[in-house]
């Protein structure tokens, strides 16, 4: 299975999207993305956690310590209001970008 390198902006988008459904901890986010993308997109811990901290610093997600399903302490992240706005904006620009690229690939 070929692993694709994710550009940084896309990683943020994926994280925000996976948090749209509700709070999750870091491991769950990476598992989810992996599953949903049929194992194509694998987020490495080395990129995930710096990204999470960066997003937290920007105020798009906020963190809270909670208890996981196996009764262990885990840090749960959830979207903030500005995070939701950011997600919408980034999703929109992603769609526009991919549509434009697809057009170019088709027509040129």
């Amino acid at each position: 299975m070929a692993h694709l390198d994710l550009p940084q902006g896309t990683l943020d988008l994926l994280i925000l999207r996976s948090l749209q459904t509700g709070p999750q901890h870091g491991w769950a986010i990476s598992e989810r993305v992996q599953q949903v993308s049929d194992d194509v997109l694998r987020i490495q811990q080395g990129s995930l956690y710096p990204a999470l901290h960066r997003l937290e610093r920007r105020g798009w997600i906020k963190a809270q310590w909670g208890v996981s399903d196996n009764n262990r302490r885990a840090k749960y992240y959830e979207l903030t209001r500005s995070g939701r706005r950011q997600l919408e904006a980034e999703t929109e620009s992603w769609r526009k970008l991919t549509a434009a690229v697809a057009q170019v690939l088709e027509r040129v």
Partner: protein
Amino acid sequence: MLNDLRYRLRALFRRGAVEAEMHEELRFHFEKEVEKLERRGIAPVEARRRARIAFGGSSQVAEDCREARGTSLVENTVQDLRYALRQLRANPGFATVMILTLGLAIGANSAIFSVVEGVLLRPLPYPQANRIMRVFVSTPTYPRFPLNPWDFHDLRDRNRSFTGMAAFTRSDMQLSGGTGRPEMLNGFEITAGFFNVLGLHPEMGHEFDRSNEVPNSAREVILSDHLWRTQFAADPSIVGRKITLNAMPFTVVGVMPAGTEHPGNEYHPVAYGQHVDVWTPFWFEGKPSERGSHYIEVFGRLKDGVTVAQASADLNAIVQEVGREMGQNPGWRALVVPLQQEIVGASRPMLLMLLGAVLMVLLIACANAANLLLARAATRRREMAVRLALGAQRGRLVRQLLTESLLIAVTGGALGLALAAGGVQAIVALLPSDFPRAGDIHVNAWVFLFTLVVATGAGIVFGTVPALQASRTDPRQGLHEGGRTLTSGRHQARLRSALVVTEVTLACALLIGAGLMLRSLLKQMQLNPGFREDHVLTAKLSLPNADYKNGEPVVQFYQQLLGDLRALPGVEAAGAGSDLPWTGWDENRSFDVQGKQPKPGTFFHARYHVATPDYFRALGTPLLAGRFFTVADNHGAPAVILINEAMAKTVWGNENAVGKRITFDDHPKESDWLTVVGVVGNVKDKPSSPEAEPGFWWPQAQAAYHDMAVVVRFNGDPGAMIAALEREVRRLNPGLAVANVRQMDQIVAASVATPRMEFILVGLFGGLAIVLAGIGIYGVVAYAVSQRTAEFGVRMALGAQRWDVLRLVLAQVAGVVLGGTALGLLLAVALGQTLKSLIYGVSPADPVTLASAAGLVVAAALAACVAPARRATGVDPMVALRSE
């Protein structure tokens, strides 16, 4: 934005908690990964292994997380500082030397800057002080002359350039009638609106107006805050109260706030540490047509938009106009000079010279610091190589090394600031008593800022090159066991030599400067002053007009007093004069000479003084021809004068001046001629004057001056003499203040205060410089010797003598020392041209001084080489060969 800041602050200040959280989070992720693998059926140990591989370097992840937190700049700096502190503590000797040398250099800079700031940079304590101008009249002979009161009056009324003009003249007053002894107060007579022109206002009462300028108008006085508090116990109802000055009642009309400074009074200045205590009104006495005597100092505040040149032209026009009206053409021009320049102008060259000298010391200290750091870098090569090999970025390394330098520099700066606080006090104590604005010199916020900037700048200057050098270490070679790389070593050695040459150059130049100052001082101190210095007591007396209404009682008083003093045991001679040598007396006037015409366009003029018969005997000024005054030269007897040698030569050349006559009248009667009865020895105005000014003396019995300086030549205990003098004065008139009681050697010492201070300071700087340069030379030689130890061992094994090895060691340093000394000589000669005004009696390129300084530098260099040379010649050839 706020969130960002809050996040970063939390990451910074609750670092421990944040780090712990991060580790816990990562560990949780790891455990979940292991769980996932176990659920797939992999064995726990294998699962952990695979998870760990997949996880990658946890420290790298942690590092990236830290970066993402956005606090890396601060965290790294804190880390750098901690590391730098550890390094310093591990090398206390190195740290001590660095911090001490930098502390001394920076401290000296801060101290001198305090003086420069207080005297030259800080604006005068008046609102918009740059608009206040001093006004003089000038001719080629008298470039800055005071004004005649009526001339000032006309200027004040007719000018269009000033919002206000005012004038003042020194007029000390005796305060009596209090509980204590009568006291002589520093005072000035001032014209209307004096304080208003300066921008000051009384804290109580009001100041004088034009009605006060009318002669014999109400006697009013304005007090200083200091006087009000000390003599009148801060009486809240002081305004309107009468106090006794000069035996007459004066009404207090106002009190000036504390710290009211006088706007520059270069003639009869108020000494540092003293206050102006009283201001009385200036009366415009005499006829407006009599414009002969010039004695008031004038200043004014320029109107907005008027330039100095315009004001000059305006006043000049008025002076010419007045001249035409009076039917005279005195040839005066008006001179307008900014007040600040007038006050501090004379001291500016010296202060700038001191600043330049002390900056040189700082440069030497920085060069030394850089040298030491470069030397240390050689020993830290391994550490740098390891860090680079482990993946540290060059930039990070440079930053860390720079942090070390800055830490050292700032610590040195703190030490320097502490030293400067004490140093400033010492410098102020050395200043001559009439140094302008001495009271304004403090270590203040500006000095603190200056120190910070200088320390930081120094740290960057001496830290950058060694830091860059160290970070360029090739990891491969650094880790190599032998650790000696030829190419980079040579480059470094050349750099260090260049630094040491600079140090030697600057140190040599400073030593030459100190030498010139010393010779200048000695020349001035060795001068035959023309009078005796030791065991000559002086005091000032002022007889109030109210008690001594005309000449008779004045003459009688002084005759009585001097007679009483002469009768005391231990008194060899007692006299009185209008002034004392070297105290700034400057009264002069012109006269006509019987049988001689002055050169066309000039007139005969000389200083004039007054003296009693024994004045010169008491002072020890010799009689060169004729006789001194006697009791026969009294009121009613023919008018006589004594002249000094300078006047005899100037007016009568080689002729015998005794018996010649002068007059002040245009059409003199017989009684208007003054006959020269004797010639006395010369006394200069001050030690650094090129030559004595012509001068003549009137007998006190004929001139009847109220204010005189009493001069007593005595033997025995000065304290007893002072007490006796005060007792005799009190016996004759208990209401008189005995002021300025000093011995002549104190006056003499005070007169050389400036060159003495210059020598002490430049000498200190030179001493510090040569010590620092010595340390630099030592470093270079020690390093060179350590590099060549093996070579020396081989040479000695092959039969070389200790002397041969010694010669090699000295050759190492000869180039640096000789080159530096030569450059230093050139530098000093070049600078000497600009500093000619600061030295006296010796040429800036004086060969004795140059040779001595060069000799001192070479001696210091040799001293610095002793230890390394001993080490070089003490090498055991077997040991050296074995270590190779």
